[in-house]
């Protein structure tokens, strides 16, 4: 029997949710951080959406947020011209890094020792978190505000997407530009997958997949509406996209065929991310909510419960039947 997707709505924010990020899988599960224009980024348990804490301290809209792999540190980028590093266990602010303009993106290296920031001042900055007194390394080159900056290729290179309609690949050691991709329209989002070195880019109604090392196009897909964000499943079976028509679309990665579309949000979807285990994906919207969606609809996972009359799941703990 076909099951209808039941999204889990995580409320708490009072303004649009503009960015979200998952941590890696830790002994305590995985976690989710959401950036919101209300200036109060929140940490949540990744598989249930339960609120854990709010990082208090920013004095402006928070445009970017990230967690390190083991979810011990969080970093946020805000309109108050600072990027902050937080202890995500206690919620305390550890570091405040001043910038000259709105900061839009933050990203940890895999060892969590360096932080990459980027924003409206068109510069990429690399902060050494073990030596905070030292000035950051700066990389210039973009002609307009940088929307997203990510470490790639085992933290040896940097990818940045800006409002000058380009995506640039930089070498960390030489601080020089290696390659540039130019588009006809501004790129709305960028996601990097280390496993397979795949870059997921969205612009207009297109979702494009590139090789992150060579910046060669792998494939593209077209959605029915302008897309703000897309995310690829860790096993590379599906990808999901959300945009201006408030809907989430699920596509098959192999055939680029649209499989499903889900309504639920009451505003444009700003960000979509798959969880590290691929069992669910989270979306953040203009309506101020985050929603968690199942990849395999009907499966028992997190707060979702299997309901088939003859349960195919052999686990003795699962309960089947109507609640």
């Amino acid at each position: 029997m076909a099951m209808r997707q039941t999204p889990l709505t995580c409320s708490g924010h009072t303004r649009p949710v503009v960015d979200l990020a998952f941590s890696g899988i830790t002994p305590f599960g995985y976690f989710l951080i959401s950036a919101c224009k209300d200036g109060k980024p929140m940490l949540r348990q990744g598989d249930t959406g339960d609120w854990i804490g709010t990082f208090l301290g920013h004095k402006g809209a928070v445009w970017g947020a990230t967690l390190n792999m083991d979810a011990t540190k969080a970093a946020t980028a805000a309109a108050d011209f600072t990027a902050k590093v937080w202890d995500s266990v206690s919620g305390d602010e550890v570091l405040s890094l001043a910038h000259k303009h709105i900061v839009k993106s933050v990203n940890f290296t895999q060892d969590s020792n360096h932080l990459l920031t980027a924003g409206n001042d068109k510069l990429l900055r690399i902060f050494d978190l073990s030596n905070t007194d030292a000035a950051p390394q700066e990389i210039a080159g973009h002609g307009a505000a940088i929307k997203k900056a990510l470490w790639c290729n085992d933290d040896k290179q940097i990818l940045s997407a800006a409002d000058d309609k380009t995506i640039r690949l930089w070498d960390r050691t030489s601080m020089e530009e290696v390659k540039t991709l130019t588009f006809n329209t501004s790129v709305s989002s960028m996601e990097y997958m280390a496993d397979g070195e795949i870059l997921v880019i969205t612009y207009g109604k297109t979702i494009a997949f590139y090789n992150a090392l060579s910046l060669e196009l792998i494939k593209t897909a077209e959605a029915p509406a302008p897309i703000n964000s897309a995310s690829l499943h860790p096993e590379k079976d599906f990808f999901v996209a959300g945009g201006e028509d408030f809907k989430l679309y699920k596509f098959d990665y192999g055939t680029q065929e649209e499989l499903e579309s889900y309504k639920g949000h009451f505003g444009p979807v700003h960000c979509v991310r798959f969880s590290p285990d691929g069992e669910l994906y989270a979306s953040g919207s203009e309506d101020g909510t985050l929603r968690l969606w199942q990849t395999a609809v009907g499966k028992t996972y997190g707060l979702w419960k299997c309901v088939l009359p003859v349960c195919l799941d052999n686990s003795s703990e699962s309960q089947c039947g109507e609640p």
Partner: protein
Amino acid sequence: MWFGISWSLPKSFTLKKQFPVYVLHFPVCPSGGDNASFLDTNPPKKKTNRTFAVRKELCWKKQHMATPVPVLRLPKGPDPNSRGFDPNSPRYIALCRTTVATTEAAGGDEEELQQEQHARSVLRERFLRCLLAMNNKKVRFNMHENVTVEATFGSSDIDVLNFQVSDLHTPIGVQKEALIRSQDVISFTFDA
């Protein structure tokens, strides 16, 4: 009956001179809710002028085939009274270090550690007594940018993130009630 639409006369109809009033009963479809995926991915063959039979079939399929996945509960929302990060959670207990690390003596110099813990508890107690003593007293706050303000101290919140004060004398006027962000304060003084 004609393709699922029934016609009936309302029971209240009695006046013979009035024109007959007929009530239409359409087959009831559940509200589309959040998920319109079935219709999106299985559009009817005739794009215009769908027959009532096709509509009825689609409604029946939607009602009988698309059962919403039940959930155990909704995700827990934020606590309005605190910023979270429960110190009793297993993760906090396992991972959280104190903000000022204790001297860790390998092999355990128990006496030194105990003295340090005693000193810490004395300092904590003094700070809390200080906050109590300040209640309703005139306090002078030294803040960033060489700003000094005077106010009548009220209380602090549990995380010592904000101080509640009354009659705050600022360079631009007097605020009857105000919250001072503790991270903006360098020091404060008062007469006990």
